[in-house]
């Protein structure tokens, strides 16, 4: 099963976990990306995420299909949040179940690394004295 979602509502680790648990799975690995309170020592007030949604769903689905192929994943769930997030809010949850646990770790790490490279989602850090689009400039 592959489940890809972009949501304006808060994400839920339990819901994501329940999507992937399976009687055939030997390992379930979850990556949960949360909002940090500072960037290079500068205090972050909040983050604003936006997505080019149809393409973001398409790119995340590609990641899930690749994982299903390469690591024989049983289930892959990728949920990404958009809108305004405060510190410690969850931006992304990736849950993967595989027959053997080593594969789940590798697949989950591949998923978050690739998501950060290819999926058209952007975040803007809002500081007390300004804001900046993350990673936009060298």
């Amino acid at each position: 099963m592959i489940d890809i979602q972009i949501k304006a509502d808060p994400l839920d680790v339990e819901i994501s976990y329940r999507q992937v648990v399976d009687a055939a799975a030997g390992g379930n690995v979850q990556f949960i990306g949360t909002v940090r309170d500072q960037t290079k020592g500068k205090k972050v007030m909040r983050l604003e995420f936006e997505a080019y949604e149809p393409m973001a769903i398409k790119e995340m689905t590609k990641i899930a299909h690749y994982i299903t192929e390469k690591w024989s994943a049983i289930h892959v769930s990728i949920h990404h949040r958009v809108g305004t997030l405060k510190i410690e809010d969850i931006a992304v949850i990736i849950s993967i179940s595989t027959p053997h646990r080593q594969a789940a770790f590798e697949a989950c790490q591949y998923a978050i690394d690739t998501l950060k490279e290819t999926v058209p989602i952007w975040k803007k850090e809002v500081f007390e004295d300004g804001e900046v689009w993350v990673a936009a400039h060298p």
Partner: protein
Amino acid sequence: MKLRISAYGIARDIMNGSSTDMDLTEVKSTGDLKNYLIDTYPAFKDLLSFSLAVHEEYREDDYLLNDGDEVVIIPPVSGG
């Protein structure tokens, strides 16, 4: 060639709008459009990278555009 240009993230700030229609006689490919955008909005040169998507896929510079295409400007992504 008539194109609809959409922009997200910092690209929207640079273009001062999320969507605009352009009629560009010299533009044939995504590479041509990139050059046009950099000429028109020099701030694109300062980005770490910027890509163009057509029909929800990243396109190389030699991708030939069709009249009426929607082209989406993808500045450096930062999800997760």
